[in-house]
């Protein structure tokens, strides 16, 4: 019974993938045949003859699909002639048993999203795992809770020097940046101060606890600051606090440098961020390299290589800040270090 259920899982997820593909390309006889042949091969026990990468998204659709599409595309063009099978297994379909039975024989697992990473890492996988579309703090927390695995990550966060560099490009004469760190971001303090010092600015760091209100630390951080750097900590920035944060800083005419496009739309001055598509592309390239070399040892966790800049021109105008425009800023941030300032 157990085996049949697992098999059902596999077929279901496989068909799901084929169906989606079919929606894009239309059913073809060939794909039907391939599906049948593949299922037949699976049933015949010669499962995973070629290299196999399992992709585990937290959920279906949306950002995860955007990631998968870009991942598949860049992997396809980068892996060369090596044959590779990609299996997509939604995280809720993944169980201890299905992992042991089927996926433990794959070469690599790529998780997409925090929930997927959590699910996979708690299974103590024996294969290497790349966790993507995950905040750096969550990845670190998961790894420390599930040590011993062969894991790496492509963070969703931008490196701090890139974020501070953005402040420098937008506000070249401004020297003091206010920051509020919460429980999930408190350990950034030392690094933040070091990065800021290397860029010639000072950060004014205030911290808050989960049960504390933002208003107090926020007003202290804004006092005498030229800019406010929002960190991706749900205690500091969430749907409830963002209104207060943006209104208060705007009243004090302190521009907010955010970490997402939506935050900029809401009223921050600008953000450097990566889209799921960009992360997917980078992950695809990384995996393609592993495939080409036939070496599955993982590199260290890395920050996004591809990123975008969003600027709220209305906010800039209102604050009397002249910006070089998102495209130009992006180009400046992409310049190799040393030439950028």
């Amino acid at each position: 019974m157990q085996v049949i259920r697992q098999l059902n899982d596999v077929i279901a997820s496989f068909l799901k993938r084929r169906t989606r593909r079919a929606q894009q390309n239309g059913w073809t006889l060939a794909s039907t045949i391939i599906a049948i042949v593949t299922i037949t091969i699976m049933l015949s026990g010669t499962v995973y003859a070629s290299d196999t990468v399992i992709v585990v998204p937290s959920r279906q659709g949306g950002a995860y699909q955007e990631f998968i599409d870009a991942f598949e595309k860049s992997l396809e063009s980068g892996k060369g002639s090596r044959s590779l099978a990609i299996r997509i297994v939604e995280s809720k379909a993944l169980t201890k048993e299905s992992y042991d039975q089927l996926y433990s024989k794959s070469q690599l697992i790529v998780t997409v999203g925090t929930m997927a990473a959590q699910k996979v890492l708690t299974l103590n996988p024996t294969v290497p795992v790349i966790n993507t579309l995950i905040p750096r703090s969550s990845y670190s927390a998961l790894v420390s809770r599930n040590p011993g695995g062969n894991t790496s990550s492509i963070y969703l966060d931008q490196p701090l020097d890139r974020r501070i560099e953005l402040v420098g490009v937008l506000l070249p004469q401004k020297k003091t940046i206010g920051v509020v760190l919460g429980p999930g971001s408190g350990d950034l303090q030392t690094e933040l101060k070091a990065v800021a010092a290397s860029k010639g600015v000072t950060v004014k760091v205030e911290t808050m606890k989960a049960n504390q209100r933002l208003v107090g630390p926020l007003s202290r951080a804004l006092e005498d600051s030229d800019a406010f750097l929002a960190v991706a900590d749900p205690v500091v920035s969430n749907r409830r606090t963002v209104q207060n944060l943006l209104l208060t800083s705007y009243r004090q005419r302190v521009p907010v440098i955010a970490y997402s496009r939506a935050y900029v739309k809401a009223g921050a001055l600008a953000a450097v961020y990566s889209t799921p598509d960009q992360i997917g592309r980078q992950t695809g390239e990384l995996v393609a390299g592993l495939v080409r070399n036939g070496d599955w040892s993982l590199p260290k966790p890395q920050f996004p290589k591809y990123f975008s800049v969003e600027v709220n021109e209305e906010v800039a105008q209102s604050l009397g800040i002249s910006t070089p425009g998102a495209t130009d800023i992006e180009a400046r941030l992409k310049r190799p270090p040393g030439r950028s300032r």
Partner: protein
Amino acid sequence: MAVATEEIFLNDFPVVLSATRLVQARSDAPASITVIDREMIKASGAEEVPDLLRLVPGFQIAHDKQDIWIPDPVGATYHGLSDPYARRIQVLVDGRSVYDPAIGGVRWDQLALEVDDIERIEVIRGPNGAAYGANAFLAAVNIISRHPADVPTVYTKLVSGSSNYVKGVARYSQKSESFDYRFGVSARSDDGLEGEHDSRTMVKSNFRGEYRADNGDILELQFGLSGGPHQAGDVGTDFERDTSSVSNFQQIVWRRAPSADESYQVQYYRSYFSANDRFSITDFPIIDQSMVTERNNVEFQHTKRWGDAVRTVWGLEARQDSSKAPDGWFYGIDQVTNDLYRAFVNAEWRYSPKLVANFGGMFEQNGITGAGFSPRAAINYHLSDQNTLRASASQGLRTPSLFEEHANGRADYLGVTPVYSFVSPGGLEAERITSYEVGFVTRSRNSKLVADVRVYQDYISNLIDYPELPPSLTGPQYTYVNQGEASVSGVELDVNYRPTTSTRLVFAYAYADQSGSYPRYFDGVSSYVVRPTDPATPNHTASLLAIQKLSSDISASVGVYYVGRMGWFNNLSPAPPYLEGEIPEYTKVDFRLAKRLRGRNFKGLVELVGQNLAGSHYDYTSSVEQDRRIYIKLRIGAD
């Protein structure tokens, strides 16, 4: 502990700073705007709001004596052209007009607001009728009070100084993600001038609360109450008496932004003032100068952005002003009222990144003067990121106050024979101003220097003034007519410079050349004899506020304020050479030294403030001497 997931990066936030909520940058604004911010307010050492306006190019302040009329001894005007009831500037506090319905001008003393409650004052120099309607004639003053989320939870201040000046201020605030409020009370008393019967006590309280709903709607509530007893009348005369006054207001504003590109605002406010001043003098068993005024105002406003280039604000407003003073001011009429309806639209058109045009106009239907229109057109050309050239043309109106239109200051001599101090024939028209301006705004690349220069030419017609009629049995009589005119041209400079992080200089200078004529007295036959208005505007006005941080805890500032020779309309002698009544040029020098106090659970500030240190002067009449004063202030609570 909340674990951050990718959702924090990927999820949508509600739009908070919608394009419609953002205020226009100074370099895109259609007019010259002087901003007095918190740092300047604190550094000035001022305790009274109108004193802050000395920092604005071209402003003059008048301290009158509390003798005969309802005591309210301070006036603030721009380019002179005024008596101490300065009626040619509009003043708004958080969007609420505090322009007095009955007399005109502003009862600064009655504002339920302490300087500690002010975040910023924006002064728009030049007519601004297109946005603010009638009475934003020579200038408009926008006082923006501090948001409850931006003030410390507990704040107290004690001030003690010359003339037995004592003031206590206490404020409490609470903030949360959805509701913030602050509540403040203050009490002040002083002995006034040496040897005069003019001591005052004023108690004030105010409340401002803001509720933010989850859908982004914002509801704001404000209440204020102020009042107290004050002495009036010359010592030893039978005018010597005790009076009292009380004011209150209520304001409610609802704002909604259905999208990033659109917002609505509905506002209602009511303000009320009552003065109690009834006494008797020789031959006059009853002199009753008591007065009640009330304003009810409702306003709707819609702001919308049309693509990247165009932003519009339009709105509708209805107002009723009324006053009851059936004995002293509007004899025999139980209540005088004036209804006002307004429709306005202003558009900002960003034709290219370099060129911004602002067009606007306000149509008004006023119960006294009928229909009127105040248009404005301005073009701002950004020469570079730092420099902007501006040209604008505008027209504005000043509508008569209830008193100017309905004045009937009758008193019965010996309780029987009527004599009149002021009698208006009614049927007055609105004063008109046409103004042309060329301005230049510059901001250094490092933002250390921000400067605004403007050259302007104003033409004013239909100026209302009160010429003297043949005297009655007991004294002078005046009437109101529309027969004055004046033209003013000049240059103004407004500079903010921060050479280092611990030094700031704020400099203002105004040169004004005014000429015109206004009726001074009845020729005894059929017309009024006119006299030049020229002395009513000082040629030069200047101010410098220098702020220096001496250490992390100690800062010092000096304010120097210069006003050239001028005269207030009502004081100027009607006969050649008209110089009598002029006040000589004066320089007011103020100083402040402040030291922060830090304890374990305690933050505070102790301040020493000296005013008029260069010697005494007078700014309205020689009988109200502004002499040297010293104040000590202690603040507890971070500010």
